[in-house]
């Protein structure tokens, strides 16, 4: 077989693609009229178009028309279902891991809070001790200056007021730390 066909078989260059489209029925009507007029007067193009149409018809008849298996959809649904359940399981594992981590963090915060409360109590006791000592040494003079008759009672009252204030501050701090949202609020 020759690599190139004889030139006498080739159509006029300006009409080559149009001849194919005319044969395939896709040429716009106005252009189709022009090309038909040319073909009527051109033996070479007429010959070539007849040959291309014959090859096209032979191809259309010869080309296999494969079809999908009847169980294609069922197999696809099976694969998608399998992937979906894997995805759900992965999401569930992820959620469990997040909740576990959240619990661990809350526990750590609670432990930190207990330590903080103990330190607050110790600090409060130190302050109270210091105030008692101060009240004992300067209490009579200060009570006298402020017009209190019993200096010991004045010192005890002042210390008790400071302890109550420190306890309220510690309780407010604990509420703030324990009031963090639960995992269900975060992840639905």
């Amino acid at each position, binding site marked *: 077989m020759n690599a190139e*066909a004889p030139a006498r078989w080739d159509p006029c260059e300006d009409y080559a*693609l149009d001849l*194919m489209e005319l044969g395939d*029925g896709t040429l716009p009507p106005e252009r189709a009229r022009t090309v038909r007029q040319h073909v009527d007067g051109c033996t070479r193009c007429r010959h070539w178009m007849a040959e*291309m149409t014959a090859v096209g018809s032979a191809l*259309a*008849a010869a080309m*296999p028309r494969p079809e*999908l298996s009847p169980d*294609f959809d069922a197999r696809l649904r099976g694969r998608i279902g399998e992937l979906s359940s894997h995805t759900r399981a992965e999401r569930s594992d992820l959620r469990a891991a997040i909740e576990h981590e959240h619990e661990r963090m809350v526990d750590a915060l609670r432990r930190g809070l207990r330590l903080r409360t103990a330190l607050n109590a110790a600090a409060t006791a130190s302050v109270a001790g210091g105030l008692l000592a101060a009240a004992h040494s300067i209490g009579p003079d200060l009570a006298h200056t402020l017009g209190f008759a019993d200096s010991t009672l004045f010192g005890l009252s002042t210390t008790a007021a400071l302890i109550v204030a420190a306890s309220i501050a510690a309780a407010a701090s604990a509420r703030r730390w324990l009031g963090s949202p639960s995992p269900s609020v975060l992840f639905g």
Partner: protein
Amino acid sequence: MEAGIEEHLAAGRHARAFDLIVPAFRDRVFRLAWSILKDRAAAEDATQETLVRVWKALPGFDGRAALGTWIYAITRNTCLMELRRRRPTVSFDDPDSHEAQQAAASIATGPAGDPERDNLLRLVETLPANQQQAVRLFYLEDRSYDAVAEALGMPLGTVKNLLFRARKRLMELARPEEVQAA
């Protein structure tokens, strides 16, 4: 159909969109895969793989390309991977080798004992790969240049040129020896 799919996608209803994508694209994806792989069973596997990939990637589909363009691109990539698996240096632009032509002989699944038909299909196998794909798709897609262009991701003019050169070459090859020698 595609408008309904896009509505579901815009609303984030990916599973419902996928339920519409499968009947709308399944056969077109299969025909494209067959035109590239030239083997029914391999094309069916590639169609399954393509649709699974579409299902996985659907939440990330941003709509910048048309849905069909996106799905056909996934199909072509899936088929190219399959061809590379078979033959590591394969490219869509390479003319088919003798090995590929032998593999393609399996497509002759039509009625037995039709030598003219078998001969014509053998001649198609001698065309460059991109011309073969265009010819197969053209006759599977009811002779629609647009459908071939969309499936192969090529401009319309390129598809027309491929089909023209393919059929011209087949005409030359199909001529009797005495005409060719003239």
